[in-house]
């Protein structure tokens, strides 16, 4: 267990840096998690993070990378539904890093 601070508030995260209570998520906090991951958030980053939050709201899970890639291609266009595009945005893995920034748990089956 650890903590992360954003806008003067302290949030609990697990040993891998995932937010413990996803209802606490907000954009400032997302920005701080991104900083810790050494990611500078652009509109393209936010697009993926917001997509993940919508996916989680609908299905109550964080998708596996393969599923995320396919779903993003469907929603945001085929040029964005590729491993290359997503790994350029999130070099340590779109599912792992983008989920962490989105305040979601680690994807099931993601090791």
């Amino acid at each position, binding site marked *: 267990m650890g903590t992360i601070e954003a806008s003067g508030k302290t949030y609990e995260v697990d040993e891998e840096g995932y937010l413990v209570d996803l209802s606490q998520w907000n954009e400032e906090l997302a920005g701080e998690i991104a900083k810790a991951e050494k990611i500078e958030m652009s509109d393209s980053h936010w697009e993926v993070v917001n997509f993940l939050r919508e996916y989680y709201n*609908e*299905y*109550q*899970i964080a*998708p*596996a990378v*393969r*599923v995320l890639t*396919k*779903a993003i291609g469907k929603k945001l266009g085929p040029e964005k539904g590729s491993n290359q595009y997503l790994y350029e945005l999130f070099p340590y893995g779109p599912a792992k890093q983008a989920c962490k920034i989105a305040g979601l748990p680690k994807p*099931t*089956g993601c090791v």
Partner: protein
Amino acid sequence: MDETGTVKKFLFVNRKAPYGSVYALEGLEVVLISAAFDQDVGLAFLDDGVYQLAKGQNTKAIETKNFSPTYRALEGYDIEKLYVERESLEARGLTEDDLLVDVQVLGASEMAALMDEMDVMISF
């Protein structure tokens, strides 16, 4: 795939109601993980397992995660074979319309024949 690259037919057999024990949720997680292995995966719901797919679950008051929406994510994981036993629905006053995903309804003898075609069955 095994060492010869053969795809095996897996059937995950769900026979437990969703919140009284951890079987249903654990089974669902195993199914999601299994999707990464490119096997031929199907899910069967019989006995109290059919309650897992009931529409309108609301777990707010029992302070437990409602994982029923996740069954609708299975399609995105290319898991599209969902079989439900007719006798189990009927014995519980349910019909196909009460379920939150599209399924194939099978009679017990058809379900038995389906099981007989499988390479591996995993029960929850």
